[in-house]
């Protein structure tokens, strides 16, 4: 059998790689994907704890996290498209003036 700590360590590694990518990358879409990676890491620890304590509330919470992530991705990508239409760039370092 697999110890609980292994699952939590994998979750921590995924979360920290996601956080690092969020800080490091300059393309706005890649930053969004790093946010999704962090959410996935958190989902993994929810499911691991649900299995540890034999309570299904963990699975239900993962369901809600996925739904919220979907809503966030939809609205965020719509914002990105709107910004791209006016600024013509996807690099976050270039979107640094309130008015062009």
């Amino acid at each position, binding site marked *: *059998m*697999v*110890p*609980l*700590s*292994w*699952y939590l*360590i*994998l979750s*921590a*590694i*995924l*979360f*920290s*790689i*996601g*956080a*690092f990518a969020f800080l*490091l*990358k*300059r*393309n706005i*879409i*890649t930053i*969004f*994907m*790093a946010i*999704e*990676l962090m959410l*996935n890491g958190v*989902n*993994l620890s929810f*499911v*691991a704890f*649900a*299995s*540890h304590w*034999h309570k*299904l*509330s963990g*699975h*239900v919470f*993962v*369901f*809600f996290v*996925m*739904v*919220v*992530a*979907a*809503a966030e*991705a*939809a609205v965020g*990508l719509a914002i*990105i*498209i709107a910004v791209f*239409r006016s600024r013509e760039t*996807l*690099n976050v*370092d270039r979107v640094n003036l309130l008015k062009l």
Partner: protein
Amino acid sequence: MVHQALFIFFGIICVAGAINLLLQRHPINSALSLVVVMGALALIYLLLGAEFVAAIQVIVYAGAIMVLFVFVIMLLNAGAEERSKGSHVALVLGGPGVAIVAGLLTWVMVHSNPQLGSVAIGPSDFGETHAIARLLFRDFLLPFEVTSVLILIAIMGAVVLGRKEN
């Protein structure tokens, strides 16, 4: 024994995909490596007996949200390379910071060692779809309804934001 081998195999695929997301220049490659991470995570959920969550991870996350990302990357024709100026500070401060946080979490977790279960074919007593449905539609009914309103708001927001200004 087989569980540990499978977990290590899928865990390595997850971490490799995540590091590939970090290292790739073109966003389409990052998106596809994120799809690989999500697929491997779905298989790890199966190892934990969470069959319904694994199925909706593939259907919703890898099969719908990431398709949305890939569409946007294809439509905007997101540039091939990205510059790294301005991210040197992030590299210098962020790298060690994140490594410290990850190491701290790992060290704390290694000091507790309960063992975990596995998935079953056929009737099982954990992770079944009926049980999740029972929880979702009785105990968690209010969050479920609020979530559906949230999705409706997100749809309206995405349509309004994505419209062309005439």
